[in-house]
């Protein structure tokens, strides 16, 4: 099949297993974000796809061909490094032309392609500048142009935007996504920033402890997290333990919640409720009762911290939609079953 396929990929450094039995299909033209906390194995996985590290076992296929042991320089990749790795001894133009020069492309062709790429990244006329004279965002774009110079089969980016400030980063996310859609190139980005992943990806791959916890579209990851790690890692959430009472009804903190489905036969389960789905009511009107402990007014949204039977639940709402509450005031918490996600173990 066309695209990138990882089969039972394992990487061990000594006794430490950095990547554990990873399987993943990336269809041609997909934008994948690998997301996870530091040390989760996402960068190691990317380096194995690039051939910079060899898997301990397992196979990597690209368009049906097994490339597991193909050396990096024969894989026809484009890769953007976290440090960008722009060559300090070469100019902007020479940096972008490097992959063409290595492939001994004719001089005129190199020049034509460099000009093309420079105008694509809005840096036309910068060919002769030293890279040290560029701003952070400009370097970023040069690194991207250089990686795309040969129209690679695979476009890999390792934390590419981490050095930029927040505003520029958001702008580059959009730019990168638009560029990828225009070129239709299979792209894999490693990031620890979930906003970045949500902005750019067709598929978000959430990793932890060297394993893939969930691989799905951004909205599905957010709405239907596979487990409590994913639910907690992507956005903010309330994780609540639910139990079945003697009649088999689901209860939360001892109070029955009508319509909440527990997995068949399970005595208990963890449910995830996004803060924006938690609605505050008058005391006694909701499924649960609690007391307000803290109110954080962020202008655009207001977060209300409610203590329910010793556990904290956070509700987020816009100022208009929120009933007036003050610290110390008793409130009710409404839990509608359709916003409660029952997590698998």
């Amino acid at each position, binding site marked *: 099949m066309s695209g990138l396929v990882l089969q039972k990929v394992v990487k061990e450094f000594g006794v430490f297993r950095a990547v554990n039995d990873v399987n993943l299909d990336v269809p041609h033209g997909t934008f994948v974000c690998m997301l996870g906390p530091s040390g989760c194995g996402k960068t190691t996985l990317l380096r194995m796809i690039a051939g910079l590290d060899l898997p301990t076992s397992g196979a990597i296929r690209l368009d049906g061909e097994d490339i597991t042991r193909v050396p990096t*320089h024969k894989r026809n990749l484009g890769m953007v490094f976290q*440090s960008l790795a722009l*060559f300090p001894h070469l100019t902007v133009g020479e940096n972008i032309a490097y992959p063409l020069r*290595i492939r001994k492309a004719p001089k005129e062709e190199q020049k034509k392609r460099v000009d093309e790429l420079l105008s694509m990244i809005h840096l036309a006329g910068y060919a002769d500048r030293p890279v040290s004279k560029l701003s952070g965002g400009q370097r970023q774009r040069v690194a991207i142009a250089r990686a795309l110079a040969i129209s690679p089969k695979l476009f890999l980016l390792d934390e590419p935007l981490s050095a930029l400030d927040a505003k520029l980063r958001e702008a580059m996310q959009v730019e990168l996504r638009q560029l990828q859609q225009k070129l239709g190139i299979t792209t894999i980005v490693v990031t620890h920033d979930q906003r970045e992943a949500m902005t750019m990806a067709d598929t978000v791959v959430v990793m932890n402890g060297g394993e893939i916890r969930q691989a799905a579209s951004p909205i599905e990851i957010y709405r239907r997290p596979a487990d409590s790690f994913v639910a907690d890692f992507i956005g903010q959430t309330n994780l609540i333990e639910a139990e079945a009472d003697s009649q088999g009804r689901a209860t939360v903190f001892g109070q029955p919640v009508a319509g909440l489905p527990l997995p068949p036969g399970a005595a208990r389960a963890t449910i995830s409720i996004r803060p924006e789905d938690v609605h505050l009511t008058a005391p006694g009107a909701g499924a649960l009762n609690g007391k307000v402990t803290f109110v954080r007014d962020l202008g655009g949204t207001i977060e209300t911290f409610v203590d329910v039977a010793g556990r904290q639940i956070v509700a987020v709402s816009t100022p208009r939609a929120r009933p007036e509450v003050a610290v110390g005031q008793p409130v009710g918490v409404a839990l509608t079953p359709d916003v409660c996600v029952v997590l698998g173990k």
Partner: protein
Amino acid sequence: MTSVFRRLYFFLIALFLALPLIVVAGVSVNQKQTLAFPPEGFSASWYGEIFSNAEWRNALAASVTLALLSAMLAVAIALPLAWFLWRRVAPWANIFQLLGVAPFTLPPVITALGMLTFWATAGFYGQPWTAVVSHAIFFVTLPLVTLSLGFTSIDRSLVEAAATMGADESAIFRTVVLPLILPYIVSGYAFAFVLSLNEYIVAYMTVGFTMETLPIKIFNALRYGYTPTMASVTVLFVATAAVIFGLVARFGDLPKLLGAMASDEK
């Protein structure tokens, strides 16, 4: 208060370092062939003597040739070694790093005597080329240290980036590593060159009876009395060293070469 103290202290150290050289420079322009300071009269003829007198001229030529060749050989030994140690994990290969640093760390007499016994035993004692090899080994430490520093300053992701763009090992070395390490090669060569130019004991013990380098010539002249040419040669040496190190500082990062990695942040 601190700044006054600093200036005074700097001045005293500078005076201490410069004083003998000032006197030698003064002596070198004496009109007559006497050792006198302050100089009596003024004459630059003792500088001309270095080039017009066949003995001094030959010694100069011998010294420069020796320094040029031995520094080249020292770099040729140090470059592959430093590259290998940077590129590969091979703990036992560090023994060669140690061997490369040892000759310069031990008292020079040791290396000199080792060379003397070795060349005498091997039957090459007194051959001019033995001095080239001896100096190269004696000074291999200098390019080895500058090159090791230089390699550690190369971001390894540059090498990986080149590989992802299709460069194999030799193309990476040619297009990325070599251009980045070149300043360190030049400064390593410069260090070895200047020190070889000045070196006495190893040269003396290996080829001292068959060939005169400038330091040997000065020493021999010193034992048979005084001639102002010694002074003019000394000034020439100091000036050469200052010019070469000045050039290294002009085109390279001297504080960094001397191990001050933190200087980047200033």
